[in-house]
């Protein structure tokens, strides 16, 4: 059984996300299997595993290519992803 290679997924961090990761950008290493292709849901799960403090927030969204993404949306290595904590503009 060959190991599926990992994909490096970069996530931009803003607001409280930057405080929780102590970085403007983090990298998560994830596997995309033919029978279970990578989605936003996987990224969300991996983020909570690496940075459990995100579980203390009211909620957070993930943006893909500068638009809100849904959990089922596919993710490829070239996508620009960002963590979107609860917004508070205005």
């Amino acid at each position, binding site marked *: 059984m060959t190991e599926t290679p990992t994909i490096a997924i970069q996530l931009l961090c*803003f*607001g409280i996300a930057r405080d929780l990761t102590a970085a403007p950008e983090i990298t998560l290493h994830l596997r995309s299997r033919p029978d279970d292709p990578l989605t936003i849901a996987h990224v969300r799960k991996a983020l909570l595993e690496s940075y459990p403090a995100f579980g203390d927030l*009211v909620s957070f969204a993930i*943006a893909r290519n500068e638009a809100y993404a849904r959990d089922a949306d596919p993710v490829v290595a070239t996508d620009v992803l*960002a963590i979107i904590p609860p917004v508070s*503009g205005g």
Partner: protein
Amino acid sequence: MLDIDLSDSPLSVDHCYGKVQDPSCGGICLFVGTIRNHSKGEPVVRLEFDSYAPMALKEMRRIAGQAKEQFGLTSVVLHHRVGKLAIGDIAVIIAVSSAHRAAAFDGCEWIIDELKKDVPIWKKEFRPDGSYWVNARP
């Protein structure tokens, strides 16, 4: 006309008014959001706005365009400040013009409501006891 801006310089009410003013329009509604010296009963000393600028501009443009269409507005200006702000500073200005004033009021209020829901901008309040990202924690 749509005019969208994220700026780390002070916002101007007269400037936004001038942009939506139009000889065919009789009614202009503006909303100005300013920095309050208190929040949920706690004193606030100053404030910082972080933003995911390219996405914030896209969301602002989407909201302004949808409001223009939905309420039949002539022009929409939507300017948001980022960076460090003092009490009383202007955080956001929305200016809309319309042939009918009811549409101007409704469209302007809809834009600020949508902005507060969707635009990726984050407010950090500095209080005497520390600093807090607004809305982040339960």
